[in-house]
C-alpha cells in the first residue's frame, strides 16, 4: 500500500509542470538572471516541501467517521432533502420554513470532520463551498457561516442559538441539541 502510494507520487503531473517551469526559467536566463534565479530557487524549495506535505497527508490515515446533522432544539425542519441542506450550508437560504433566521455553524476548512461532512453528507467539494462563502463575504451580498474550533464548541453554540445548524461526529454526546434527518 505504502509503496504504491510512493509510485503514484512519482507520476504526479505537478512534477511535469515544475520541470517545464525550471526548463523555461533556464531558457530565459540570458535576459534576466535575477528572475531566473528566484524562480529556480522558489520552485526547487517548493518541490521538496510538496513531497513532505504529501507524505504527511498519506500517513495521516483516513478513519471514515460518520457525521450527524444537529440543530437547536426548537428548529422545525422535519424532512430536509439534499438540495435544501446544500442551500442552507452554502448560505443561499437565510430563513427556516417558519420564517426564523438560519445560523450555520462549521468547523475550519481543514478540519477533518468538516471535510468528511462535505464528502459524506453534503457530497460537495470543499473548495466549491468555500467559494460560495467567499463571494458572499467579500462582495457584500451575504454572510459567511460562524466558525468554531471544535465539536464541543459546536454543540455549545448550537444549543444556545435559536435557528442554529451544524454537524458532529457520531458518538459525540449531544443531549442539548436535536439531530436532523436527511431524506
Amino acid at each position: 500500500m505504502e509503496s504504491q502510494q510512493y509510485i503514484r507520487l512519482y507520476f504526479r503531473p505537478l512534477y511535469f509542470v515544475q520541470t517545464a517551469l525550471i526548463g523555461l526559467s533556464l531558457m530565459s536566463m540570458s535576459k534576466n538572471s535575477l528572475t531566473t534565479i528566484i524562480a529556480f530557487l522558489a520552485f526547487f524549495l517548493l518541490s521538496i516541501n510538496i513531497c513532505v506535505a504529501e507524505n504527511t497527508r498519506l500517513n495521516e490515515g483516513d478513519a471514515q467517521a460518520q457525521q450527524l446533522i444537529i440543530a437547536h432544539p426548537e428548529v422545525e425542519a422535519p424532512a430536509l432533502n439534499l438540495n435544501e441542506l446544500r442551500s442552507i450550508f452554502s448560505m443561499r437560504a437565510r430563513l427556516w420554513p417558519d420564517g426564523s433566521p438560519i445560523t450555520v455553524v462549521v468547523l475550519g476548512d481543514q478540519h477533518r470532520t468538516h471535510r468528511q461532512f462535505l464528502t459524506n453528507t453534503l457530497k460537495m467539494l470543499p473548495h466549491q463551498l468555500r467559494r460560495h462563502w467567499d463571494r458572499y463575504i467579500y462582495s457584500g451580498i451575504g454572510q459567511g457561516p460562524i466558525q468554531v474550533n471544535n465539536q464541543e464548541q459546536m454543540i455549545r453554540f448550537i444549543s444556545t442559538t435559536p435557528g442554529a445548524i451544524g454537524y458532529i461526529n457520531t458518538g459525540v454526546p449531544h443531549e442539548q441539541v436535536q439531530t436532523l434527518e436527511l431524506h
Partner: protein
Amino acid sequence: MSRCKRLNSIKQKLRQLLCVGCAIIFSSFSSAENHFLGEIDWHGFISQSYVNTNQNEFMGTSTDGSWDANEAGLNASWRATNNLQLAAQALYKRTGNAKPKGTRLDYAIIDWRIQDRLEYGMGLRAGRLKNPYGFFNETRDVAATRPSILLAEGIYLSYLRELIHSSDSLGAYGHLSTLNGTLSFDTIFGKPIFNSGSVRSLLGGTPTNGTVNNEQASISRLIYEHGSGAWRAALSYTDFKAEFEPASGEPYQAGDIKVNQLMVSAEFNWREWQLLSEYQWRTIHYLDIFGSDVKNKGIAYYVQLGYQYSAEWSAFIRKDDTYTDASDKDGKAYTARFGGARPAHNAFAKNIVYGLRYEPSFAWSFSAEYHRVNGTTWLPDLENPVVSEQQQYWNLFLLQGAYRF
C-alpha cells in the same frame, strides 16, 4: 527628490503595517466566542506582490523588481432584519502607477430579500454594487478567491477595471434549486465608477484630457451550478455607453462610445483536477469620435488546467489570448491605422502561465506565477510611455503573499 520618494515608500509601508494591525485586531473580534460589536460581521484581506519582468514595465518599475502591487480591504455586514442586509467595504489598492491610489469605498449595499425559501429566493439591491460579470469579477481584489495571482488580463483588465468592476446601481437577483443544482440570476443597471485614467483606456490608450458624461452600464449574468460543485457554467452580458467630450485642441470630435461584452464561462472539477475556461466577445464602437465610425470586435479567452495536489498545494497551467480586433490578429491593419506610431503587437497578447499556490490555512496563501507573453495589448502605456520601446516578447514573474479573515 529621492529622499521624498523614500519617505513616500516608508509612509506606504507604514500604511500597510497599519492595515495588517487592524486586520489582526478585527480577526480576534470575529470568532464565535467573542460577540464584540453586536451582530456586525467583520472581514478583511491584505496582500503584497512582487513583480519582475525581463523587459517592459508592469505594475511599477518591474524590470528592477517592483513591490508596487498590493491591496487591502475591510468590510462589515449587518443583518438589520430577517430580510434586510447592509454591507460596505473599504479598499486600498495599488497597481503600479495606475490610479486611484488611496482608500476608497468599494461597495455599499442595501439588500432586500423579498422571497426566501429553502428551494428558491429573490431580492433587490441598491447602492454601489460589484458587477456580476464572469466567475471572478466580484471578488477580484481578494487574492485567495482568484484562481491565479493575475486573472486573465484580456478579460479582467487591471487597467480598465473601473469599467467592469463596480457601479452605483440598482440590481435584482434570484436563485432556484432545480435538476440537482442551482440556477442563479443577477442583473444590475447603473453608473460605473470612473476616474481620469479610465477615459484614456476607453479610447484604446489614446492620450486625451477629454471627459465622459452620462455613462450607463447594464450587466446581467445567468449561472447554473451542479449541487456537488462538479461543474458550473455562466453566461454574462455587459452593455455600456457614454458620451465623450474632447478637451479643446485635441484632434477628436465629441461622440458616443459603446462597449458590449458577451462572455461564456465554464468550470469542471473531477477528483483533483479542475478545468476552467472563459471566452469573451467585446465590441467597442466609437461614433464620430475619430471622424468616421470605428468598430473594434475583439476576442479574449483562456483555458486553465489546475491540479489540487493536497489540501494545501495546487498548481495550474493556463493559456490566455487576447485580440483587440478578431479580423486583424497579427495587428497589421492596426499599425497601419496609426501610421506606424503604434506597433502591431499592441493589438494582441498571447500568454502562457505556470502557477503554484500554497494555502496552509484559510487565512494565508502564498503563490508564484510565471508568464511568457507574446504581445502587449494589456501592457499599460501608463507604465511604458515610450510606445516604440515596448517589447513584443516579455516574461513576467510574480510572487504573492496574502492574509484574510
